[in-house]
């Protein structure tokens, strides 16, 4: 029998031309992306910036901006064992987490090294959604061994996601008819009828400012985008690209996977992965919980005190300390760590960064060796770093319920 192979013409496959997949908002985002600057995120096109990264960034601090978070990986955990399974996998108390709330979490190997971080949405007593930046299904399956009344499904493509962030975000949602949204507390979830079904709005985000994340059926995605941009015009709405979000998250004190830390399963060399304590996530390690994976190792580490610290640093001068090595002295004789993220913060008017510093040195003096260019000519500068304990940017409005002007 002759074998016939029917190949699809390349043009018929949506992602072939760009080599990347369109998100449910692509028809809209691609129109706004003036320079067609795209990065690839889990196979999807993600705008690097739409017009001007700084302008977009300022919308998160002064008006509001919209980030297409659809490429985020989303998983549904359901069944009688779902709470127990997640509770054992992550570091915070999932059993006690209230329905319709969200909690930021990490999950660790037996040795207490971070596999990944993400947010857990409790949608019901036996139903959860977990969102993380990278695929993690394999780890979830390993973590599910021994829990039978449990189903884990990847639902990334079934849920479109937008982050609406900035001081006017609440007012805009209200103006769009989501009545009562001003009563939504940080990390709380509310639901509203929308399009053909329902939209879920959580008061969460990655900018540290007042903001919401909107979760809905991809078929209603374009309608949501259009409404946001028509009603939002007078609220100063802007689309946000990766670059503006990167600045905002650094100011807010959030970690970026594969930037500030490497998942333990993706590192080869000893010490190239991280414990949550090193990453400053001690506050989400719930040691009151009798068990979670990695607990014994983390407890021992905490007791020893002997671990590196990812510090928030305020660095003198205005040259971002990108890729800098850190030293204990101005002469740069004793190397003690390195910078993971750095930027000039427009809103706090400071040269900010995260630096990972050896256990022995994190309380002492820290100097960053910064290289920067002046008209293509490289300059070297050794700048004093000051430790900052609070997030660089944490406005009251982000916590207030109802938010101001709403």
């Amino acid at each position, binding site marked *: 029998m002759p074998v016939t192979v029917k190949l699809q013409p390349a043009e018929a496959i949506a992602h072939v031309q760009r080599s990347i997949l369109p998100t449910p908002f692509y028809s809209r985002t691609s129109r706004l992306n003036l320079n067609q600057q795209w990065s690839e995120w889990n196979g999807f096109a993600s705008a690097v910036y739409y017009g001007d990264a700084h302008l977009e960034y300022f919308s998160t601090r002064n008006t509001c901006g919209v980030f297409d978070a659809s490429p985020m990986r989303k998983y549904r955990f359901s069944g009688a064992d779902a709470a*127990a399974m997640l509770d*054992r996998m992550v570091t915070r108390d999932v059993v006690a987490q209230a329905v319709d709330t969200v909690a930021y979490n990490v999950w660790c*190997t*037996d040795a207490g090294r971070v596999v990944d971080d993400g947010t857990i949405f409790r949608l019901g007593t036996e139903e959860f959604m977990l969102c993380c930046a990278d695929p993690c299904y394999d780890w979830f399956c*390993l973590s599910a061994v*021994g829990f039978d009344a449990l189903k884990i499904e990847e639902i990334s493509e079934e849920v479109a996601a937008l982050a609406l962030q900035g001081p006017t975000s609440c007012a805009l949602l209200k103006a769009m008819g989501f009545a009562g949204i001003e009563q939504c507390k940080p990390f709380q979830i509310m639901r509203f009828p929308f399009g053909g079904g329902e939209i879920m709005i959580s008061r969460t985000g990655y900018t540290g400012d007042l903001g919401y994340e909107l979760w809905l059926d991809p078929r209603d995605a374009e309608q949501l985008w259009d409404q946001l941009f028509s009603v939002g015009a007078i609220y100063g709405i802007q689309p946000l690209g990766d670059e503006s979000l990167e600045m905002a998250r650094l100011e807010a004190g959030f970690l970026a996977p594969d930037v500030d830390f490497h998942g333990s399963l993706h590192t080869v060399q000893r010490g190239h992965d991280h414990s949550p304590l090193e990453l400053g996530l001690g506050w989400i390690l719930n040691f009151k919980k*009798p068990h979670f*994976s990695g607990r014994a190792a983390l407890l021992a580490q905490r007791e020893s005190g002997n671990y590196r610290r990812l510090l928030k640093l305020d660095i003198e001068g205005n040259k971002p300390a990108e890729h800098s090595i850190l030293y204990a002295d101005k002469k740069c004789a004793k190397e003690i760590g390195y910078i993971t993220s750095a930027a000039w913060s427009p809103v706090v008017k400071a040269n900010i960064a995260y630096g990972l510093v050896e256990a022995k040195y994190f309380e002492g003096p820290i100097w960053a060796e910064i290289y920067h260019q002046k008209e293509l000519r490289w300059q070297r500068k050794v700048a004093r770093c000051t430790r900052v304990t609070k997030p660089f940017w944490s406005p009251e409005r982000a916590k207030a319920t109802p938010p101001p002007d709403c």
Partner: protein
Amino acid sequence: MSNPADVIIIGGGHNGLVCAAYLAKAGRKVLVLEAASGVGGLGATREFAPGFRAAVAHTLPQLGRQLVKDLDLGRHGFSLAADALPTIALAPAGGHITITADGLEGASPADSTAYATYLKLMKKFARAIDPFWHKRPPMLGSGGLRDAATLGQFGWNLRTLGKTDMREMMRMIALPARDLMDEYFESPPLKAALAWDANIGSKLAPRSPNNAVIALLYRMSGDLTGGLPLARGGTGGLTDALAAAAAAHGAQIRTGSAVARIVVEQGRAVGVELAGGELIRAPKIVSNADPKTSFFKLLGARHLDIQFTNRINRLRMNGQVAKLHLALDGLPDFTGLAEPGGRLLLAPDMQFIENAFDAAKYGGYARELPMEVLLPSLHDDSLAPAGQHVLSAQVQYAPYNVQGGWDAHRDSFLDNTMASLERYAPGIRDRVVASELLTPADLEQQFGVTGGHWHHGEFALDNWWMNRPTYGASQYRTPVPGFYLCGAGAHPGGGIMGAAGSNAARAILEEN
């Protein structure tokens, strides 16, 4: 919750009883909870037909004198029905070779000479590693002095074999049984009989690499008689004596008390809940059940780390041995054998064993099955009515996960077994009054051993010593404080030996 004990032991198999006896002897208040109506686990002697009794584990090659002495088992009723049974490599048409503790009978001169060399070398190796069966395995990277010392002693013992023998051991250690036997011997049934002990109990056959020599040395770990001993009253005679010794030291033993789960509070094992709902507290809980039962059914994955849980989940637990018990109205005739008084090995050559394994690998079983056969009633008249006999056989390979399930295959497997037996003992079918075939599924169901596995998990290099059952639980302690292992799934492994039980008891006593 009542609190009657310092230590609760889940399971009254021989290892649980040994552990109980040592702990009780050291003054601990011990409570043994056994699911079955009697003690002994796979070693218990049971009546399988009116007047006919047998134990699943029928010989005691691994049992040591130290245990018998420490627990004064003679005083508690233990004695031998036979002390040095030979193994007889049967040839279907006669011309059998008898393997005794010190040599061969009926073999070619070349084989006899080779056997002397082989035995001397193997005994030397066995002596070098013998102390380690009875010691807590070291933990790598612990920084502990004890662990370093154990590792050092291991190296030293190998080194003191002398350069030539140490090199030879290193060369031989990972050989498949087939290569080893081919190297030394010429008689096909002799090779098959010697290869048998290198593989039985695990999912391995003569051509499987890595485990043959270790398994052979392990089988040689007993020093009760220098031969193959049988307990009077069947292996249950030993386990009853263990129970009596434990009780004499004050241990309390409750049968018919299946543990449903281990109670964990604040990350610590603090008690057990019985199937009937009764809660009993104790600061230390020890499990004689296999690792999968212990960690998944009794403890629960939620109390364990993720990677550890997966290592336990990946343990290979599919049993391969079926047990046949026949009630015979008289002594069967084995062609060319005056009296079937030894352990008979029914495999014409190693390929015959391999063929049976090949079928089992893919969830089937062979038409012709190799087996080891014993007539314990020849040595012990308490096992069968006068003039009648019990035949006890270990039949390979009977894969736990047979395609279609054992209910669909039990009869046909029994047919194949009987036909294979008939080749050596024509007319034996006519002597059968009653029979019992225990497939791995039956063993699992009746004895609570996952997969019906001989060793409570493969006895193989990846699951050996500091990896038994896996690192993190290889020193009888588990990641959950207060919870310990003492069964065959822990170091050193299966077989009636009591080493897991006594090593566990020592580990627990050393903690205080």
